[in-house]
C-alpha cells in the first residue's frame, strides 16, 4: 500500500517528502480545490516546482481539482487540469463529471483519480466513472465498513481503492453537504471552503470558548475541554431538551490499527487528511504511519505519536469498524 500525504504549502510538501511520503496531494490557490483557505495552496509555478521535487525524490505528485464547476463556466477548472497535466503530475483528483470528461478527452494520458467529493460508494458508481472517464482510482467515502471496502474492491478489480487512514473525519455525503453553505453562503463543493475562515469567530468568555460560524453559535467549550473544528456537523446543539453533538463528536479518524485489514481488503492507497494542517502535523503523522506500515510498531515510540494531533483529543476508527454497533 502507498501512503498519500497532504500538502497545503510547498514547505508542507517538503516535510511530507522528507518524512517518507509515497505520494503527495495538493491544490491550486482558487476555488478548484476543497481546501481553498487564505494563504494556503500552490500557484502554478509552485505546483510545477513541487512536481519536479516529487519526481526527483521518487514521490508521486497528485493535484486535487475536487470542487464542482460553475454552471455555464468551467474555465478555471479546465485551466487547472491543463496546468496539472503540463506540470507532469502523476494524477489529478477530480469529482465533477464535466471536468473529468474534459481531462479524459484533452489529456488522454493523464491518470484520473476520483475524489471522495464524488461520494462513489458502490461498485456500479465506480464502474460508471471507470467506463465513462477511464478513472483508475477511487477515493472512498468515510462511511464504508472494511468488509464493504473489500467487497467493492473485489467487484471492480481494475479500479484501485484509496481510503482515509488519519485526520479529519467527514461522515456526510461528501460533495453533497450543504450545511456550511446554509450558514455562510459559501459552499465546500463550489467554493472549496467548509466553514470558511472569513465566517469563523472565536470568543473567550472567561475560561469558556465560544465558536461561531456566520450568525450561528455552534459550540461552547468549557474550561479545559478539548476543542474541535468550527463546522456545523461537529456543533453542539440543544434538541428535545437534550444538549449534544447531533451529527458527530469533534473527533479525528485514526485507522492505523486497521492497516492489516485494509491490506487484506485489497486497498491500494492510504490517505492522510489535512492539507490545512502545518508541517509539524505532516512530518510527524507521515513518519508515524510509515513506521506503522513497515510493521515497526515496536519502534513506533521513536516516531511522533499521531495521537498528539487529534481533533477534540479523541480518535475513532469511524465507520470502518463501527464500534458503536
Amino acid at each position, binding site marked *: 500500500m502507498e501512503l498519500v500525504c497532504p500538502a497545503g504549502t510547498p514547505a508542507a510538501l517538503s516535510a511530507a517528502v522528507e518524512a517518507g511520503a509515497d505520494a503527495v496531494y495538493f491544490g491550486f490557490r482558487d476555488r478548484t480545490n476543497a481546501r481553498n483557505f487564505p494563504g*494556503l495552496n500552490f500557484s502554478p509555478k509552485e505546483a510545477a516546482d513541487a512536481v519536479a521535487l516529487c519526481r526527483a525524490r521518487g514521490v508521486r505528485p497528485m493535484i486535487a481539482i475536487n470542487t464542482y464547476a460553475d454552471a455555464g463556466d468551467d474555465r478555471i477548472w479546465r485551466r487547472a487540469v491543463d496546468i496539472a497535466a503540463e506540470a507532469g503530475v502523476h494524477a489529478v483528483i477530480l469529482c465533477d463529471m464535466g471536468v473529468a470528461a474534459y481531462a479524459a478527452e484533452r489529456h488522454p494520458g493523464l491518470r484520473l483519480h476520483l475524489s471522495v467529493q464524488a461520494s462513489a460508494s458502490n461498485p456500479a458508481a465506480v464502474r460508471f466513472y471507470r467506463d465513462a472517464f477511464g478513472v483508475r482510482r477511487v477515493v472512498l467515502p468515510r462511511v464504508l465498513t472494511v468488509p464493504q471496502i473489500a467487497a467493492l474492491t473485489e467487484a471492480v478489480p481494475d479500479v484501485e481503492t484509496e481510503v482515509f487512514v488519519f485526520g479529519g473525519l467527514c461522515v456526510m455525503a461528501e460533495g453533497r453537504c450543504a450545511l456550511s453553505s446554509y450558514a455562510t453562503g459559501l459552499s465546500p463543493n463550489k467554493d472549496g471552503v467548509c466553514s470558511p475562515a472569513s465566517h469563523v469567530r472565536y470568543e473567550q468568555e472567561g475560561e469558556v470558548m465560544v465558536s461561531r460560524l456566520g450568525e450561528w453559535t455552534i459550540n461552547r467549550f468549557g474550561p479545559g475541554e478539548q476543542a474541535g473544528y468550527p463546522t456545523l456537523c461537529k456543533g453542539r446543539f440543544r434538541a428535545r431538551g437534550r444538549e449534544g453533538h447531533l451529527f458527530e463528536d469533534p473527533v479525528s479518524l485514526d485507522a492505523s490499527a486497521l492497516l492489516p485489514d485494509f491490506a487484506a481488503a485489497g486497498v491500494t492507497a492510504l490517505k492522510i487528511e489535512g492539507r490545512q494542517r*502545518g508541517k509539524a502535523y505532516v512530518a510527524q503523522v507521515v513518519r508515524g504511519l510509515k513506521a506503522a506500515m513497515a510493521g515497526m510498531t515496536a519502534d513506533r515510540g521513536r516516531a511522533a505519536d499521531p495521537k498528539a494531533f487529534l481533533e477534540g483529543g479523541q480518535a475513532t476508527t469511524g465507520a470502518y469498524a463501527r464500534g458503536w454497533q
Partner: protein
Amino acid sequence: MPAASVRALTPGLLAGLALRPLPPSLLRRLSRPVLARLRARLAPRLGDRLEGLSGRVAVVPAGHPVAVVATIADGTLFLDVDDAEAPADAIVRAPLEVLAALTDSAGLDGDATFFSRALTIEGDTGLVMALRYALEDADAGPADLMAALPAPARPVLARGGGLARRLHARASRDLALVQDAALAPLRADLARQEARLARVEAAAKRRR
C-alpha cells in the same frame, strides 16, 4: 511536545512577568530595530501568500506586557510591538514556549494546539490562518530571530544557546513541581467531588 503537556507556569511566563515593570514604549524602542531586520529577512520569502489581505494580528505571549503585532497592508507584512491589550483585528494568545514550538516541524501543530486550548484565537480567523501559512511556508523560525538580533548579541547567544536550553528545561521541570504542589489540594478536592457525584448518580440510577 504534545500541546496538552504545555503547562501554564513556564519560564516564558515568568520572563513576561519580569518584563511587566518596564514601560511598553521602552520595549517597543528596543525591539523595533530587531523586528525591522526580521521583516527584511522574511519579506522575500513570504511570496504573495498575504496578497489581498489587510489587518492587524497581535500575538501575545502569556503573561507578557506587550504583543508582537503583525500588520498586513495590501499583502505586505510589517512587524512592531504594542501593548498586550491594544486593539487588533485578531489576537492570538499562547505561552511563549508554545509560540516557539509552532515554528518547528518537530514541534507543535497549530490546529492541535488550538484543539488542546493551549492557544486561543479571537477576531479575524482568516487573517490568522493566512499569516500562519505564510510564515510557515517562509520557514520563519528561531534562526531568523537570531540573525535579526544586534551583531554583538549573536555570538553570545549562539555560544550560550545550549546552556539556555538546559536552563530552560531545568526551570520547566522545577516549575512543573511547583505547579503540581500548588494544585495538589485542588486535585484532591476535585477527586472527592467526582467520587461523590458518581455515588449520587449510581443512587439515582438504582431509584429509577
